[in-house]
């Protein structure tokens, strides 16, 4: 994923800013040691807030969609965040027609979700139509994996060490959605091309974020994270 990101940034001549929560990195934060809840809080939510404060951005554009998750179903396209980057449902502005109130007051900033009304299928059909390059992990390949707590986790590097009774197996898997490693489960699939993926998404009996373990950290997981400053 990182290699893909760097390649695309270089190709388009983008000024890519990469920020890491140094304190978290130095403390050796790892989802495997500290649990996914703490890890994402420190390395994603806190890091995002720190980066936004550092660069003093007025708006952060994200790819979240309304069909992904319950609290996102209620989200505006231009979503106001307060001074602490928190999402307060009572602060959200009514959005009518194509009149988007992007004015900011009082230390507010904005999250913009331009893909709000796109469904997962819309995204893949668009990728197919426009021949957009995507990360290889979306395609089914034989990958070394381990079955842990009911989820198929890919063995990527030494960050994941096998437990005593675990056996590494090569499986034909792909990722339907890309979150953090190893907080995203793979699915068994034979979809090795965009056309295959479109067909698979169309008929799938499972929702897109089903492999995102952070959604199961606690009830209303995403809503809590948004209140604390996540996307």
């Amino acid at each position, binding site marked *: 994923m990182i290699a893909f990101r760097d390649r695309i940034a270089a190709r388009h001549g983008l000024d890519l800013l990469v920020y890491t929560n140094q304190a978290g990195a130095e403390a050796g934060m790892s989802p495997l040691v500290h649990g996914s809840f703490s890890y994402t809080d420190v390395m994603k939510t806190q890091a995002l807030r720190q980066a936004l404060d550092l660069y003093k951005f007025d708006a952060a554009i994200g790819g979240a969609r309304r069909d992904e998750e319950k609290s996102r179903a*209620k989200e505006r396209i231009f979503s106001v965040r307060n001074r602490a980057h928190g999402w307060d449902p009572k602060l959200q*502005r009514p959005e009518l027609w194509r009149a988007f109130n992007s004015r*900011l*007051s009082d230390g507010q900033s904005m999250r913009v979700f331009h893909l709000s*009304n796109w469904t997962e299928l819309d995204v893949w059909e668009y990728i197919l139509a426009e021949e957009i390059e995507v990360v290889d992990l979306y395609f089914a390949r034989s990958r070394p994996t381990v079955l842990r707590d009911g989820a198929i986790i890919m063995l990527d590097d030494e960050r994941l060490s096998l437990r005593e009774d675990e056996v590494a197996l090569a499986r034909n898997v792909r990722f339907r959605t890309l979150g953090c490693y190893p907080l995203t489960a793979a699915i068994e699939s034979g979809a090795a091309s965009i056309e295959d993926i479109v067909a698979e998404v169309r008929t799938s*009996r499972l929702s897109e974020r089903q492999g995102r373990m952070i959604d199961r950290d606690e009830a209303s997981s995403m809503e809590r994270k948004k209140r604390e400053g996540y996307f």
Partner: protein
Amino acid sequence: MENLGILRILTCGSVDNGKSTLVGRLLFDSNNVQDDQLASLENDSRKYGTRGKEFDFALLLDGLESERQQGITIDVSYRYFSTSRRRFIVADCPGHEQYARNMATGASNSSLALIVLDAKAGPNEQIWRHLTICHLMGIEHVVFAANKIDLVGFSAEHFGRVRTELMDRAQALGFKTIYALPICAVSCNNVVRWDEKLDWHQGPCLLSYLEGIDTQAGAGAAAGLRLPVQFVSRPNSDFRGYAGTISAGFARVGQALSVVPTTAKTRIARIFRGDVAVDEASEGDAVMICVTDDVDISRGFVLLSPDDGPTVSDHIAADIIWFSDKPFLPHRQYLIQCGHQLHRAWGTNVKYRLDVQTQEWLTSKQLGKNEIGHCHISCSHPLIFDPFDQNRNSGGFILIDRETSETMGCGLIRYSLRRSTNVAAQSLSVSPQDHARIRGHRACCVWFTGLSGAGKSTIANLLEYQLNKAGVHTSLLDGDNLRLGINRDLGFTEADRVENIRRLSAIARLMVDPGLIVIVAAISPFEADRQAARSLFSESEFFEVFVDTPLDVCESRDAKGLYKRARAGLIPNFTGITAPYERPQSADLVLSQGALGNLRAW
């Protein structure tokens, strides 16, 4: 798939009518709920559900934690689903008291309203409110789902009575299509398929109806081009393109264009969709256009077919739906955003307020939260628009609070008021500098604000005396004195105070023009109005002085005996006791106790 296009549905209805259950049912029975969502639903139904052991389908939609805990829906929720025949976007709106903003939001981009009511209880005030807002917001197609028909034993008679009442009201408002049907959401009767218990009903089940309705029929096929310019692209000196989303009509290469608000004429040279050059584009397409001539075009302008112009006016009549807790008051300054245009605006008056129950328009001086009114609005710059009935995107606007950036309300432009369009400003030969030369000093306005009895008039009077001794030309506008004269017709309600300050600041402006130092002493309790006064002057021309005498000191002095009477409940709207005073946040000078010495130094 029939090419009827995505159907955007607004679902509404008062609480407890089973609206969420119905939508949940629609999703579930059309196979749009995935297995893992179903597993979650099972868990949630056990924890929060109101249906005992069964699935509570309403929980598919109640996404926010606080909602689930309280068992109600607070905000608009968007759901996407499709059947083999059509794709749907559902904007599900809450049905309780805080409804106007969410209903207006959901309705703004929907073409059909699905109103769920309790068949047994029949329609009530909330249903009529929702129907009125739907109609106001330009929704042309409505479906009434009379739910819980099982509670009246699936009676055709009962439904018939309910149906008649609904049809009468809806037809009176003037919807294009109206359909009423009986259903039972919980047991899924007549929702996604025909039901034998309701075979007396003439008409398709809900899902079939939604799949088949054509909302585009008879739409303005002959509409002229409207392209509001959102962005001007000038990557280098060779290329200039104007980008925006076509809000009506067609654009073709070579087509003649008019530019509004200038009167320039040109032609389309090139059209780009993304980075691909095309020959034509239509409504809804996001395009970049290049023109054949070198004309001045900025964001907020509109490109259109020459014969079919929008209206350009700085004074309009509009229906307003107010969202904010703070009331809509004439002469308060807001920002109006219409398309890509953003200007200062203020209401000149509220003509009528709509009583949604009786459909009557009542006189009113202001609008409160969730109220709908017909108002006149004046803008700092001419607005380019089409009447809302012709084009929702170019006739709809939002009003924004200048301080908090809150979206205060929305408006639907009905027509232009010709009043001010025939009057143009006369240019004057004598400039402020000319005046200053004769008088020997520059002009400005010193505005004293503070509680009653704080000492404003005393200090203002002293200031004028000192200035006069120094040979300065002054005028003192004391709020109380003006209330005995030109402001005699005003009381102390919030609306009247706004008007009082408007007149005071306008008069001050008129006196600063010929070179006087104008001193104003008025309670002026609202920050918005003080800011509005300030906005009439340049930065070096206006000074706000806050006479910060605490309430208890003012009250102990009680020079005019007013505080005593206010405390006795004899004076309503008395600042500090029965009306608010908003402390200035950005006064140029603050005078606290014993500050008369400071004044001499200044």
